[in-house]
């Protein structure tokens, strides 16, 4: 082995790697590079469940209804629809020019087929219950779809924007079976087609020439780069490799705000960050005083301003502000100062039977993540300073935390969050109903359940709203969980990108964006 030869070998290898694919430069087509913090598990609309999968699916597929760039409902695969007077029957008229990426027409039957697959237990769809308000869905003809509801569902159109309700091409499924969603096979009815998917690296989408609105789609190619480390994503944004980031790392936020402030987009989101109590075990079972004391002792303003500092808002309600047709109920103590709250918290703490000599000993669990770590340490110190509680922090892998949360054996206080599936208070309040599978604290209150049921039966939107608001009030008084803050979406958007609009759902379809011509 002679060093000289080794050198030659090395440089040859690098040269090979270099000339292998340098054909990128000369292309005139416009390419948008977006960051994605988690890799989609699949693009099968019925088997996917992550937000990131949904983000990509919104680029390659299209439901009956969609959103405009600024987040308003807009016609999509259906060009118009009618609603019966009692609000129970929706008739959708599909676009005659809606096409799959292989040129086939998108028909009403494809939507019916998809819904059948969604609810079939054999599919094991994550969102199988998503359309449980729908009684019947029927293709009147190729371009007319009739949806009959069990009860008035004011958020039906919003549900129909979700990828779980997108159509599926029956022929493609028949041909490929369950692996129809792989790159090269997946047919799309949206603006883009999945051209390539390199696991752990990038999903490359190219223009769908058959898309009905193809001529208004500006960008030719969209690359969703999977970048799990937020700091790496930021570095790649700064080198110009990424045009839109999925997030901004908490540690770099002040720096980013200072240097890239004009490219930073922070916007409220329909998403609550909370600490849940395990209500099935002591010390929190049967001790609303203690639950209230801990909740009041958290200085949420300090937390969002100093510890987070990214524009999050302190949460004093369960439903985030900004939800359509709803005014969140807030804790009765929201108007007090933190000092006043602390005093009440201290007396509640004593009432619950704890004192300096007999402090509360508590385990707080959170999943491994820098933001969660910061919040947990801050809350731990607040509970120590205000109440004298001795809190042990336990960080676990997300899956371990979830398993513990479900088992309700070892957990006491745990971090969790809820992201609204659609813009309605129902998506937040329903998870605390006794029989809901996402009811992590194990909350059960007959009055609350009854109010939620009554709300579901209302045909009048204003009356429905009153029931929902009352339900929230009843629930907040029980303190089944501690709302801590409402999330904000955080993106860096390159000045090259045009058409970006912040919105509460944080949906940003690539087809609404365009790139400034390079000079």
């Amino acid at each position, binding site marked *: 082995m002679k060093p000289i030869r080794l050198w030659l070998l090395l440089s040859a290898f690098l040269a090979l790697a270099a000339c292998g694919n340098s054909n990128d430069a000369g292309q005139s087509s416009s390419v948008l590079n977006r960051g994605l913090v988690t890799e989609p598990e699949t693009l099968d609309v019925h088997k996917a469940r992550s937000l990131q999968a949904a983000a990509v699916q919104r680029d390659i597929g299209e439901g009956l209804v969609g959103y405009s760039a600024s987040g308003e409902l807009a016609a999509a695969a259906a060009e118009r629809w009618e609603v019966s007077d009692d609000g129970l029957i929706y008739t959708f008229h599909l676009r005659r020019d809606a096409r799959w990426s292989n040129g086939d027409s998108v028909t009403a039957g494809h939507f019916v087929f998809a819904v059948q697959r969604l609810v079939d237990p054999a599919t094991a769809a994550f969102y199988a219950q998503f359309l449980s308000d729908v009684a019947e869905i029927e293709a009147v003809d190729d371009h007319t779809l009739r949806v009959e509801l069990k009860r008035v569902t004011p958020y039906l159109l919003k549900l129909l924007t979700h990828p779980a309700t997108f159509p599926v091409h029956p022929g493609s499924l028949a041909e490929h079976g369950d692996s129809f969603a792989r790159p090269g096979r997946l047919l799309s009815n949206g603006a883009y087609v999945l051209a390539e998917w390199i696991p752990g690296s990038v999903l490359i989408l190219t223009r769908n020439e058959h898309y009905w609105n193809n001529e208004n789609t500006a960008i030719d190619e969209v690359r969703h780069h999977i970048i799990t480390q937020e700091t*790496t994503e930021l*570095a*790649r944004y700064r080198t110009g490799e990424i045009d839109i980031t999925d997030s901004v790392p908490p540690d770099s936020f002040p720096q980013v705000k200072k240097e890239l402030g004009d490219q930073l987009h922070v916007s409220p989101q329909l998403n609550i960050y909370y600490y849940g109590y395990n209500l099935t075990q002591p010390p929190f079972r049967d001790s609303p005083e203690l639950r209230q004391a801990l909740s009041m002792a958290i200085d949420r303003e300090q937390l969002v301003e100093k510890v987070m500092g990214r524009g999050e808002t302190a949460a004093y309600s369960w439903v985030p502000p900004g939800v359509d047709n709803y005014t969140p109920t807030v804790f009765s103590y929201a108007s007090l100062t933190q000092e006043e709250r602390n005093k009440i918290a201290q007396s509640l703490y004593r009432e619950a039977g704890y004192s300096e000599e007999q402090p509360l000993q508590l385990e707080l669990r959170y999943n491994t993540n820098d933001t969660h770590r910061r919040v947990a340490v801050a809350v731990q110190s607040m509970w120590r300073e205000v109440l004298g509680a001795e809190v042990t922090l336990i960080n676990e892998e997300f899956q371990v935390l979830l398993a513990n949360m479900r088992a309700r054996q070892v957990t006491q206080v745990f971090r969790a969050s809820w992201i609204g599936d659609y813009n309605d208070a129902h998506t937040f309040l329903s998870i605390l109903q006794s029989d809901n599978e996402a009811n992590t604290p194990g909350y059960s209150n007959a009055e609350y359940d009854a109010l939620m049921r009554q709300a579901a039966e209302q045909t009048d939107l204003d009356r429905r709203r009153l029931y929902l608001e009352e339900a929230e009030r009843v629930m907040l008084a029980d303190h089944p969980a501690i709302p801590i803050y409402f999330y904000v979406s955080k993106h860096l958007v390159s000045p090259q990108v045009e058409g970006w609009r912040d919105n509460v759902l944080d949906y940003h379809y690539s087809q609404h964006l365009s790139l400034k011509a390079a000079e």
Partner: protein
Amino acid sequence: MLRYTLLRLLGAIPTLLLVIVLAFLMVHAAPGGPFDDERALPAEVAEKIEEAYHLDEPLPQQFMRYLSGLVRGDLGPSYGYRDRTVDEVIGFGFPVSLQLGALAMLLALVVGVGCGTVAALRQDSLLDRAVMAFAMTGISIPVFVVAPVLVLLLAVKLQWLPAGWSGETGAARYFLPVITLALPQIAYIARLTRASMIDVLSSDFIRTARAQGLGTKAIIRHHALKPAMLPVLSYMGPAIAAILTGSVVVEEVFGIPGLGQFFVRAALNRDYTLVLGIVIFYAALIILLNLIVDILYGVIDPRVRQR
């Protein structure tokens, strides 16, 4: 030689079995399932999924099922990538990791042996001290510090190189990861080479060669290099292990779709089959590489062969 190779290969089977059992048990003892999420699955759906992936069977039965698949080279479906099999994911990740690891190893060997030889020739000179100080520093700074610092300097500030992997297709994307990965190995190899080179250079046969009037270059090339490489060669085993470990960090920081990154993601997401598949694959790989190193050792040093 052939007999030796075959025996070693046979001896690897119990090793592999041990790895498989160990990893299988650990993965299945872990709390949390692959399909848990903040939104719980409806019971009916959860049942269907468990059925589809045979998670409802008793553990021994699952193990036998896994083993029989393994024999056929089928590592099963990935739980995390629901449209792909573990074989496919490894097929994607391994070439990337291999390329990265091989380049890093090559760089480490060339630079490490070069630096070590130069340092040995000028023992105790300023150059020697500088090389050794660099080598010591190289092994004293964790890879996860070196990588982001290099990214900040060379990519973000100076804009010379890309910070990530997926955007580029050319050679530029190799530089930072390969250098980061090679750095500690360069340091180790330089130290090893220097020490053994000093040993060899002071031996009798080199003195004889020198007395015959051979130049330094010729002496190094024809006489000293081969014996001096023996300790370096026996370090290859640990070096491969170190590069595997390092590649987890490097792939994580640069977002490189290699096996290390897949492993960490899979472990955190309870992708049982992918975790198992990668552990077993790597165990087999390490066994194979160690075997190759042993055989190479025999080629360079005939004494080993005769034993």
